[in-house]
């Protein structure tokens, strides 16, 4: 039986909703509306005039190979970061869930990286992955020229993926562990008594029961890797070398805030928003079908 509470007092309901609606309006719809308007004009940074230019900001962007490159790098970054961050987190959660010795310590420690701000993280990994200092210097000493993200674009991409993944492993880990612990132990024990091994139990019991969590994390990870990556890029590579790590969100930041090209940045953020929305819709339409909620 479902219980329903009916509010007869409409005024109270509206009054309770208004603050929330106001907040969302001020911090989301208003700026988004402003961005939409700017995307169709040429806005002067200090104000004092903007001219309606129709879709020319968009056609200019979409006709620019450099912009397509930034879409491509964003996709590469988002997919490799999501797969890695979730894969490593899931493996760790499965291991910790087995209550190996000291698992309580891991459980706490593995969450910490998520609490580190992106700039601090970027600086730390810049040192760790610098070819002439830190850890990689030893490798470069043994194999000269092996690692140089300052000039090698693929390696620069690897460097920012590592830094980003390191942060998100902690986040994904908590969700995976919580979900694993919610699986009744009796199921696992019954399977073990029937003679199924560890991998079999993971494949047939744990993973299927984890699908709601996996789905949730895929959506969150993909979205965040499109929007939350610019701090790391700014500190580690500044989009270089030669645009190899110029993610869409970093390009928006650079063109808008450094280059003061407000309209170009507004058009780019509209495109980014549409891309993220499209990806999320795609996931809900096609991936969610494979999720077992109960």
């Amino acid at each position, binding site marked *: 039986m479902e219980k329903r509470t009916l509010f007869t007092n409409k005024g109270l309901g509206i009054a309770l909703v208004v603050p929330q609606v106001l907040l969302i309006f001020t911090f989301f719809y208003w700026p988004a509306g402003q961005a939409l308007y700017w995307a169709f004009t*040429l*806005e*002067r*940074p*200090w*104000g*004092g*005039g903007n*001219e309606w*230019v129709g879709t020319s900001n968009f056609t*200019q962007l979409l006709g620019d190979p*450099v912009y397509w490159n930034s879409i491509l790098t964003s996709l590469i970054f988002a997919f490799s970061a999501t797969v890695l961050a979730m894969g490593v987190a899931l493996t760790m959660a499965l291991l910790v869930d087995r209550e190996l010795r000291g698992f309580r310590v891991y459980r706490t420690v593995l969450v910490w990286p998520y609490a580190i701000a992106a700039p601090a993280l970027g600086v730390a990994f*810049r*040192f760790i992955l*610098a*070819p*002439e*200092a*830190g850890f990689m*210097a030893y490798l470069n000493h043994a194999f000269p020229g092996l690692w*140089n*993200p*300052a*000039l*090698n*674009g693929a390696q*620069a991409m690897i460097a920012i993926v590592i830094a980003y993944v390191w942060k998100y492993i902690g986040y994904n880990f908590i969700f995976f562990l919580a979900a694993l612990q919610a699986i009744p132990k009796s199921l696992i024990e019954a399977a073990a008594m029937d003679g199924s091994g560890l991998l079999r139990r993971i494949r047939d019991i744990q993973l299927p029961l984890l699908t709601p969590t996996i789905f949730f994390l895929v959506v969150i990870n993909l979205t965040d890797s499109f929007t939350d990556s610019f701090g790391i890029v700014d500190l*580690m*590579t*500044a*989009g*270089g*070398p*030669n*645009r190899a790590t110029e993610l869409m969100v970093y390009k928006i930041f*650079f*063109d808008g*805030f*450094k*280059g*003061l*090209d407000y*309209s*170009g940045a507004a058009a780019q953020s509209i495109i980014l928003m549409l891309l993220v929305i499209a990806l999320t819709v795609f996931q809900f339409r096609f991936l969610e079908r494979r999720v077992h909620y109960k």
Partner: protein
Amino acid sequence: MKLSLLGATGAAALLALLSANAFAGGKTKIDFWYGNSGDISKRVQEVCQHFNESQKDYEIVCTSQGTYAGAVQNTIAAYRAGQQPTIVQVFDVGTLDLMLSDAYYPASKLMADEGYKVDWNNYLPGIRGYYATSKGEMYSFPFNSSTALLYWNKDAFQKIGKTEAPKTWEEAAADMKALKDAGYACPLGFNISADESWQLLEQFSAVNDQPLATKDNGYGGLDAELVFNKTKFVQYVTDLKSWYDQGLAVLKSKESGEEMVPAFASGHCQMILTSVGDHGTIGRTAAPDMHWSVAMLPTYAGIERKSSLVGGASLWVLQGKSKDEYKAAAAFLNFIAQPEQALFWSTVTGYIPVTKTGYDFMVEKGFYKDPKYQGREIAIASLTASDKLSQTHGTRLGGFLQIRNEVANGWQAIFANKVSVQEGIDQMVERGNGILRRFEATYKGKQLP
């Protein structure tokens, strides 16, 4: 135009609020936003404190915004909300954005209105030439000013039997080779990020008398076009690339683990090209027994040296303030132009004095004789190297931070052997011109002063 209306009412409301506020305690309070951080920020605070202690009528509140670009961004946001500071520091290449806005109160007009007589010819020609309009009028006050110099390690040069820094790039190439043969791993440390566009492209073009763009480097109008793919710059990048390939010039960046200034100070690199503003840092961080000095940037043989460019920032007074606040602003700007302040400022930072009287006062006080500051006079010599201003006395090009980014991307492609030198530089120019055209369209109908 709802926004400007909103802004206007906001400004009016704020003005009423501020003017009520501004006289609390009988003093007129004004805000000054700047972009310096770290040690330089502390020095700016000291200047503000000196001003506040020097008189009773005004109080200036100085706030660092972290970076040059941050100071401009935050001021734009504040200006749009009608809460702008009275004075803001704007970095060299941001000058054009300000000039095209309606947001400023021209410096020359402000000082005349407030009854101060300013001899604008007192500003060093290289500095005035950079910040003035095409008609020679000054809209802002040059503040922290620097120029690029060659830093060289005297000990290392002694090993190859030289007591002077190279004057030409031909000579520098021979020196690098000799240094390499003498066992030095990094004869020249350099970098190819957007920041180095300043010394490797802009300063190089100025001292070698090469144009960056048509229309007098943009001073003559917004329709200027970049031309540095047809100048001596091409040979310079070709040479840098070949020195890099031979191991004579080494990339030193934060990505690689050691930036060039610490690389020079620690003796890892024997030459670097950087701002005179780093003179103090290197003096403080270099080993006490390391002998080093500075020299003017080398030129190519057969080219008559021209003045180098001033870098740094100038102070702009913004619109929308009360008469009393402008009085306070004028008093502050007058205060920092005094020779005593120039001496203080140049002593505690590496920046140079911006006026002739400031410079003369420092010479008179024996500043340049002090071994700690020796060599800083070379910055002045470099800025005044030619009587006539070079054809590249400055850079007035729109979206210049984005253009610098294009320059960096071109270099990175060249140094990773993805494209040839000429292709890489053509690409910088082509994409840079795209940025200029976009900027021109944004300011359609605006006249460059």
